[in-house]
């Protein structure tokens, strides 16, 4: 395992190196530059533009800049943004990351959970009404043009029904008089989710040691509900629950839209793998053992079909920027995707490179995580 990991890491570093190189030169090849926007201002003479060029480092030959970039990249310095000059690219990414991560991890999670459940059921009841209905609706939503779906949902839930807050990610009226920033809260929410995950995993491990099925169940439910109650009460006691709730309320619509749009992907993967698994002999064996249908489906079939879905899930997390471009624009959610769009329209090359490189790193890490997860989920795999 360790050997595999080290090998994989070396591989990732090489891939990353090539990737960064390609991204850098690609961006270099972009016509025009950030300074072109001053071309629209007749007050700024060519000399002043030259001056600015020097400040942005355009005057050096591109090869020097490349080597310099690579050198900085080694210490995780992605340079200085143009459009936010002289802010560091890393600090811009870090500012926007929690928002994007929180939105997309939640919606990916919801969509996968939804897809997993539906896919499982529709495969189990293949050809029945539930199967056909879910497949049909899934594919139809999957092929709706995302901006239209977003606008439609905004119209329906925000304008016509008026039940969900529109746009933005917080309500300024609520937030204008507090001392902390939304960024703090996002980080705390993420931390909370992380703690929740740890607790969940620990309980899973502990419950394995228990003797009877009932005891396992009780421990699981009690501790899960307990953790939820505890974290909610901590939020309430710290007086920030209302602010957290505000963020969550604003998230409902984008998460709902994204889920609606993309659940079909995971559902179909789940359904197909599940159909494969169902044909395996151990499913028949499990049935022959007299296990209830639900146990056979969830414990034996779905557990095995989970593997490819899990990989998909982890890898899809890596592509949040691409997905974010449209979603974040439609829902006024200032995250990484939106930053990418702005950087592109402004020709902020360092930020563009930074965002792409960051996504690359993110994807590669996701791949690594997927590999590790796979080894955990499938005992047959030993690297």
């Amino acid at each position: 395992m360790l050997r595999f990991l080290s090998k994989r890491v070396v591989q990732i570093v090489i891939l990353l190196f090539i990737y960064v190189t390609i991204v850098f030169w690609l961006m270099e090849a972009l016509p025009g530059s950030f300074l072109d926007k001053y071309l629209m201002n007749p007050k700024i003479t060519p000399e002043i533009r030259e001056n600015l060029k020097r400040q942005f480092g355009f005057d050096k030959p591109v090869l020097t800049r490349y080597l310099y970039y690579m050198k900085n990249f080694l210490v995780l310095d992605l340079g200085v943004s143009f459009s936010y000059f002289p802010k560091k690219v890393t600090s811009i990414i870090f500012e926007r990351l929690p928002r994007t991560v929180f939105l997309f991890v939640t919606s990916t999670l919801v969509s996968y959970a939804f897809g997993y459940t539906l896919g499982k059921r529709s495969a189990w009841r293949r050809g029945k009404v539930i199967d056909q209905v879910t497949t049909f609706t899934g594919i139809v939503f999957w092929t709706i043009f995302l901006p239209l779906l977003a606008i439609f949902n905004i119209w329906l839930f925000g304008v016509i029904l008026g039940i969900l807050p529109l746009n933005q990610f917080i309500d300024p009226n609520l937030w204008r008089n507090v001392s902390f920033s939304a960024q703090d809260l996002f980080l705390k929410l993420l931390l909370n989710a992380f703690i929740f995950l740890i607790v969940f995993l620990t309980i899973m491990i502990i419950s394995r040691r228990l003797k009877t099925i009932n005891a396992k169940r009780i421990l699981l439910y009690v501790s899960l509900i307990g953790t939820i109650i505890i974290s909610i009460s901590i939020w309430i006691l710290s007086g920030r629950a209302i602010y957290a709730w505000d963020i969550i309320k604003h998230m409902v619509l984008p998460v709902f839209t994204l889920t609606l749009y993309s659940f079909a992907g995971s559902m179909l993967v789940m359904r197909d793998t599940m159909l494969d698994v169902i044909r395996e002999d151990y499913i028949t064996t499990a049935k022959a053992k007299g296990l209830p249908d639900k146990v056979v489906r969830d414990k034996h079939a779905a557990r095995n079909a989970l593997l490819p879905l899990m990989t998909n899930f982890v890898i899809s997390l890596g592509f949040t920027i691409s997905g974010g471009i449209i979603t974040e624009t439609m829902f006024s959610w200032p995250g990484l995707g939106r930053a990418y769009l702005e950087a592109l329209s402004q020709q902020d090359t360092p930020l563009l490179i930074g965002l792409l490189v960051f996504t690359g790193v993110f994807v590669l890490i996701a791949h690594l995580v997927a590999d590790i997860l796979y080894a955990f989920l499938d005992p047959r795999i030993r690297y």
Partner: protein
Amino acid sequence: MKKVFAVLMLVVAVFVFAQTVNWAFLQEPISLNIWDYLGPNATVWTGYVMGPRIAGLYSYSDVRFDWIPALAADLPDLEQVGNEWVYTVKLRTDVTWSDGTKFSADDVVWTMNTVRKLIVDYGLGGNWASYVDPDYFVKAEKIDDFTVKIYFKEPSLAKANFGTLMMPILQKKYWEPKVEAALKTGNPLQTIYNYDVSDEPILGAFLLKKWEKGAFIEVNARKDYFDTGSVLTLYKNGAVSIKNPNTGFEWSGYGEPKGEKQLELVTGPYVDSIIYRMYLNRAAAITALINGDVSFIFNPLGLQKGEADQLAKVANVKLISNSVNGFRYMCFNMRRFPMNIKEFRQAIAALIDREFLTSRVLGGQAFPQYGVVPSGNVFWYNPNVEKLSPGYGMSSGDRRKLAIDLLKQAGFKWVVEPKIEGNNVVRQGRGLIAPNGQRIDQIELLAPGAGYDPMRATIALYVERWANEIGIPIKANLVDFNLIVQRVFDEPFNFDIYMLGWSLGYYPDHVADFFHSKRAGVGDFNAAGYNNPEFDKLADQFLAASDIDKARELSFKLQEILAQDLPYVVIFDTPVTEAFRTDQIIFPYEKTLSGLQYVNGAPTLVKAAK
């Protein structure tokens, strides 16, 4: 229990009595650091928030854009000392910074000299250059606490009055140590840009309260704003007067302050705070306006047709439309054949039916524009240029005939000559042959794609069709904006015709920038390669003028020359349409060039409705 009740009452009180306006932004400002803002990072959004923070010695009056004193107590005195020209400015004595410090000549002198030094020694770039041109501005000198002398190499309206004398003044006490410290670092400019300025003392009316990144910026009104309560009166006869009953400051100029008043404004601020909310797309902002979450949307492009249509139906929302200080144009590469032939350019100009395009195809979203100074800039606009434009007021058939005649005049021939009857093209022209017998193959018209600007894209396609009808082989090539910029400005003039737009300042010195033959180098603004010695001479005179009336006369002449020579075919300009909620806010006036956002939403004048 009592405590809780008290807090509750307080909350209620805040809601009831504190007057807050919510304004929608479509992009987030970058930084409130003025060095950064006027340096490498000028975005219009930053400008909207910066506007209410800063003040200069002089500013424009509302609506009419008269040049009036702000921090100065009177118009400057100009005198020649040796080969330098000295502007003596008396400062107002009733101005305080937001930290309570008195505003004095030290601040003015320090700001002006420091900026010049940073520009000359460290290459401070960007918009600072429009305030301080080291070729003109020499130095500023303190005479006493409230008098400064400002030295220029030449007198120039553009560089002095509309330049250095309008620059924002920074507090010396706050900035001097910071700048000194920065100069000791390896990269002083970056250090200066990077300073966090949330505690910066300002002269303007609104202080930053909270900036929640990505969501909103809240600013609070200053109680001790120097201009609060002052009455600005514009008279029909052109006179302007400012009176402040609170501090007793009084000034008047441009004639006798009497007769019919055009406008009278009492400066606020009337609201306690302004919240700028960030919406990342227009639809979101408009929905917010409809819902009443915001009262006004900042949008430099104005409302689109559909948005305006929609908002017109909403109760309590008022639409206002103002012309914009800018124009969209077609530029010919006059270094190339046949664009260097005047009749050819005129023929194309004749074909373009601006009225049809703007009122019908663009559905009134744009209005025709004929000259290089927008008609909305009333003072500088020469109304004669319309009549000088080829084909003005003609029917579509006559336009075509005129174009054909013009081409024939210049000696062009066709393989198949176009034939026009009435308004219809009976026979399309084919195979245009130049006077020297050379066949003209294809002329490329670069225009931004529909994604960037559907109007220009559409017009480019119409121009293509109209030109093709009479046999001019124009091919519209709708490409990325950057690609046009690259081909026009970076590569040496690798284009035939392109279509772009300008947005302009109030003082029309751009005419000289765009067409003076010494600005025809690579990367400079005379991309057309226009070279007319007569024009150059007039332009030089215009730039050097220190008298506004003289400058106006020269500017009119320049406009007329250009309307006939046509290095640019100016096609249209868009009005900026804005909407605000009448049940939430009241603006002091609604008619103003480039709309209310051009005056940053008039934050010191806006009132909450009820």
